[in-house]
């Protein structure tokens, strides 16, 4: 394991992937690892160990599925935020069910995208949240709009 020294921007962005579907996790890990500035340092299948792993492995960005056994992705994002490690959370979901986006942002997540986001765009989303920006997939925002909550004021 390489230990970055000096400034915060040294070395690749360290990622954790949390998803209960091993096929999704594996494919995402392989795709993101192809990017030279990204390194997947941990993969977990449920939400309970996420926060501890983030702290232990000095994860920069956690990609979190929502529907997982144990702790769901939104609660995992809350736990990460509470630890104050500086790690950013990016919710990566199949569907935007009513209330998910609002809850995720309230829990401290920095981004909300669909799992089938093209790999390059996903890598870009990871870089953006790492840089402190917010990323919300427009198709998911629209889904939430029609379901009653209001993404437009959340931008």
């Amino acid at each position, binding site marked *: 394991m390489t230990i970055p020294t000096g400034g915060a921007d040294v070395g690749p962005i360290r990622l954790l992937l949390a998803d209960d*579907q091993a*096929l*999704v996790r594996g*494919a*995402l890990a*392989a*795709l993101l690892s*192809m990017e030279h500035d990204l390194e997947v340092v941990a993969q977990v299948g449920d939400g309970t160990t996420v926060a501890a792993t983030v702290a232990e492995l000095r994860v920069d960005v956690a990609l979190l599925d929502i529907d997982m056994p144990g702790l769901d992705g939104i609660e995992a994002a809350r736990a990460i935020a509470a630890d104050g490690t500086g790690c950013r959370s990016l919710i990566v979901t*199949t*569907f935007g069910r009513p209330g998910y986006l609002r809850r995720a942002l309230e829990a401290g997540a920095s981004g909300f995208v669909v*799992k*089938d986001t*093209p*790999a390059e765009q996903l890598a870009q989303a990871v870089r953006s949240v790492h840089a402190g920006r917010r990323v919300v997939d427009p198709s998911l925002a629209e889904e939430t709009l029609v379901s009653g909550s209001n993404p437009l004021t959340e931008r």
Partner: protein
Amino acid sequence: SLVIMLALRLAMEREERSRILGEELALSRQRERVGRDVHDVLGHSLTVITLKTELARRLVDADPEQAKAELDEVLELSRQSLAEVRTTVGGLHAPDLGAQLASARTALQAAGIAFRLPEAASVAGFRPDRRELFAWCLREAVTNVIRHSGASHCTVTITADRLTVADDGTGLGASASPGNGLSGMRHRITDAGGTLSLGRTHPGSDRPGTTLEVHL
């Protein structure tokens, strides 16, 4: 007497209204269940298909063997999903109970199983959500009798709140594998506030048979 009539009518209207509301709810629950099925099954499969295809796309030049391995997995999954779409859509086209009685008749006849089935006319007045649920259960139960029971006789009885399908075959036995049919049926029945019970038609006999009972 006019007052009595008016009162009676009001009472009837109220009852009618709540009955309609109940049916509405039952139907919307059924639709929601189908929705959840489509959602979960296809959403997840298509996600994996997309991710793995993208991965394979990138591996074509770099690692063709791995690319082919990924594509094999995509193929397996897409075929499986197609089968699932067919099943789900079958679920959306729920047959009418009358039509289902007719096809049970045909199927049992073709399988050489003697039967006793109620007339379609005797179930015509049932509530629509109940007709739909009974049609479902009848379809699955008769399919099971034909596929698994080895029975020579099958008796179906239906009243407004009860459906029974009794056969004189080998009985459920210990080898009964947990298929989707019975568990799916149980889900539907429970959603509708009913119960499913399975027992023997002739307890103690060496061919005890199976009796399936849906009670609402």
